[in-house]
């Protein structure tokens, strides 16, 4: 392993952020944005290997806004996104008729809040590794 990978967390609940940041800190360099606007600005600055994104922020599904922008961005759309949501049903509620895993961005997976520490680390590592493999294959 050369350098520590960088994970960006975008979530508006500071307490929850503390809870996953502490887990990710053991393996990664972390950066936090507490609202979609700051999150997007951080993403534009670049350098992240994984985004942990909360969908339900602010007055609704403001996390989706970020997902939409990522989808349109030629560089960011390559980045893996781990969607951390408080309830899978909410996703089904917001996007009726779609699978529970809606595929907001080209590369994403979904875990429910609260997330088991080992599962979080495992997902993060797998997604980052898969993204690297994709880059290497190009």
């Amino acid at each position: 392993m050369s350098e520590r990978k960088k994970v960006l967390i975008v979530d508006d609940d500071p307490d929850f952020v503390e809870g996953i940041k502490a887990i990710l800190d053991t393996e990664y360099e972390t950066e936090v944005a507490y609202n979609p606007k700051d999150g997007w600005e951080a993403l534009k600055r670049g350098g992240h290997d994984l985004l942990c994104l909360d969908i339900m922020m602010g007055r609704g599904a403001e996390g989706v806004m970020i997902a939409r922008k990522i989808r349109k961005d030629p560089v960011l759309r390559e980045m893996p996104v781990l969607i951390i949501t408080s309830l899978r049903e909410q996703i089904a509620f917001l996007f009726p008729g779609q699978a529970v895993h809606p595929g907001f961005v080209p590369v994403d997976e979904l875990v429910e809040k609260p997330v088991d520490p080992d599962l979080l680390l495992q997902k993060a590592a797998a997604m980052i590794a898969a993204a690297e493999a994709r880059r290497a294959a190009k």
Partner: protein
Amino acid sequence: MSVPGRILLIDDEEVVLDSCRAILEGTEYVVAAVGSGAEGLEQARSGQPDLVFVDLKMPGMSGMEVLEALRELDPTIICVVFTGFATIAAAVEAMQRGARDFLAKPFTPDEFRAMVRRGLEWRRLEVEAAALRREREALRENFAAIVSHELRSPLGAIQQNLFVLRKELAEVVTEDQLHRLERMSIRLGDLLALVNRWLRGFSVDFVGLKESFRAVAIAVPVATAVESVQPEAVRKDVTVEAEADPEAVVLGDEGTLTEAFLNVIGNAVKYSREGGKVHVSAVRRDEKVVVSVTDTGVGIPEADLSRLFDAFYRGQAAESSVGGAGIGLAVTRRIVESHGGTITATSDPGRGSTFVIALPALGTPAAGSDGSPADQASKGEAG
């Protein structure tokens, strides 16, 4: 409101229309007057009146017909009928058909003005009541989102930090302290699961579900559900055996069907004694696919059977204190019914219960039924 009131007058007698208009002259009301029921309806559709005065005796479309059509158009429009003394009985009938009041001809200007004021006040109340009803509906629909945000978020944040603390402190704290941290986490997990189950009961759009219906081999959701209960079954030393006809196909939503079976099979395991047996079978029987779940558990007292599928109802759970929100079977019933199926339960207290879910089968084998599967799915036959 910008306009103090839109009033529509429908009467074939020109003199009545003229005098009413004259009475209201100089007021801020917007008044329209027409000479027949048909014109009146047309005007009502385009002009959105608050208050309609309609004569009962008119050539062509009668006042009664106008009343019914108006009620269909917008039940919050206030209708008052004009009537001669001879037709008081008819006025009563009109009120039964939706008219709010009647004004006997001939009436004085004051009587008419008073009726206009009263009518518009009724209308205001009607509109207000309708808005409140809508608000209540919206609140109910958004309940899931509200509860989710207010209750789940803080609980989730606490749980997340407990997870981390348990990991971080594992080396530092005593075994007893670690045990207490674990207990906190478990209790919190139960609470979160409870909130989730409540949310589920409120938030699933069982009507919209139909749009995602497609052919589902019943063996698939049955197998998934059985697989999901295995860890719990193994822990309790309960054997779950399942057999499913690979040819049995229904029109439905695989995810919610899995959930329905999971609820029933999960209950069977939950109410089984150690070493018990749960048998799941899914077979094609005539035009139905029948899934039955039989356990050798504690059974259900006769008195509980009829209320089993009501939301928040929990049986006496005779032998053990088994946890639960009392919503699983209610959700199951809604899922099954949205698939046009039925769910029934029979029980022999102390010896076990059988739950039977019957769903309309896809692909009718025998002649004699030409109902398409989609038709059958929407009928929701009982029994």
